[in-house]
């Protein structure tokens, strides 16, 4: 079992959701986050005074995937969310020891 986490540009979310569904991945959890990286923030002004907005809105996606689906998930994410401009984001994979579906108590790959 793996947990695939991706940070993406918010406007790619809807397409990604559709692409994942087509690829057979039917579950995910998303969080609104702020990112800091090569993509710089921008300057705003308020009543004539400038201030820096350093963090950029991003969406964080978490997908629990079995070993088989892991690569499908990664490929789908990278293909669908890539725009080729700075700030497209990251995907990372971490090991998962155990998964439980609360409703049924099913475990691991049955749970997702």
């Amino acid at each position, binding site marked *: 079992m793996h947990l695939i986490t991706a940070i993406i540009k918010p406007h790619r*979310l*809807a397409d990604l959701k559709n692409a994942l569904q087509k690829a057979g991945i039917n579950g995910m959890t998303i969080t*609104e986050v702020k990112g800091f990286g090569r993509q710089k923030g921008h300057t705003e002004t308020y009543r004539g005074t400038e201030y820096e907005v350093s963090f950029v809105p991003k969406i964080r996606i978490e997908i629990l995937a079995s070993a088989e689906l892991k690569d499908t998930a990664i490929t789908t994410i990278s293909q669908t969310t890539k725009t080729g401009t700075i700030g497209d984001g990251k995907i990372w994979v971490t090991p998962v020891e155990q998964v439980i579906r609360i409703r049924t108590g099913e475990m691991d790959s049955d749970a997702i």
Partner: protein
Amino acid sequence: MVSDTQEVVRLSTEELKSILDVVFLLLAAVLVILMQPGFALVEAGLTRGKNVSNIMMKNIMDFCIGSTVFFIIGYSLAYGADGNSITGWGTYFFGGNATDSGTEAVNFLFQAAFAGTAATIVSGCIAERMKFPGYLIVSTLMAGIIYPIVVHWQWSGNGWLSDLGFYDFAGSTVVHSVGAWAGLMGAIIIGPRLGKYGPDGKPRAIPGHSIPFAVLGMFILWVGWYGFNPGSVLAAEESIALVALNTTLSAAAGGLFAMGAIWVYSGKPDVAMTANGVLAGLVGITAGPDIISGTWALLTGGIAGILVVASVLFLDKYVDDPVGAISVHGVCGVFGTLAVGIFGEEVGLLRGGGTDQISYQIIGVVAVFAFVILVAGSLFGILKAANLLRVSREEELAGLDVAEHGGPGYSTSDMMGLSETTLTGSGHTSHIGM
């Protein structure tokens, strides 16, 4: 708007006075109509954001329905000449006769605005859990029947209450208590919001979602009250000034003393309660703003301010009234009505008036209470039986905005940088929740 008024004929001062009366009463009516958004904001601010559209909508409907049914039937029941001392009848159905002259038309408008006010008080008491169609029925009957009948008793010129000697200048009882007692029955019969009471039966705080809305609404109501009370002179007379001044002093003292009371009680000068205090002061002076004046007005407001805090804290243990409307309009409406019999110039107990006036006031308060409790109680009982009263548990949890009106009152998806979610290849938008 081409100006071609050539006044060749000389105007008499009487004609001019009559025009001035119309101008004044029209502007007073406009101020009373302004109270509708005031109520809407107070109620919206003191309830949760998931029900904000529903509250606003109920307040729109209170005036849309209110003025329509008051035009069709209410004005007849209130002022129709063919009635008796209990109810008016006839002459004015569908606005008949009422709209012939400017004076009649503006009177109608002023009264219609009052009808909207009475109806709207109910919406606060049953907020966050009532079915919308059921509410429309309540609003219709409030403005079309229940309120007009009480008006007839007191303000028609041949009602039994005014004949008795009951005094209620601008409606502490006739308007505010009527709304509040109907709301009381509604709140009792519909039951508390989910989660309002703990397993130990203790009331819990369910904070309103926007104190600035509540305060803005209170200020708008305060301003609107300068139509409500001075306008009730029904003509441009110098006395409107005194009425306005007393209204101000009572409102101010209401706010001050409510703040003091809740500060002493809970250690914090609660803002929502202070706003209630101002409204309590306004409701309290409404029965006698022409005969309770100066320092007595301050006193009336101050007592109302303390009373509303005590009443909210007490009632909250038993009845779930999200905005405190029963305390503000009912309890302080009663107090204000009795205050006429206590502080009223010449007629009040403490002003050398003996016990006559206070007796009439008590009778009036009790009669209106009994009438409204009975009629509104039956109405809410029938709605309950007909399953038109309360939304399902799921709908209440989701919020009435989504459940009853199709979507949330606040849409934040685009604030959160998700704007392009509306730009996808799929055939429908996929807004991110809330």
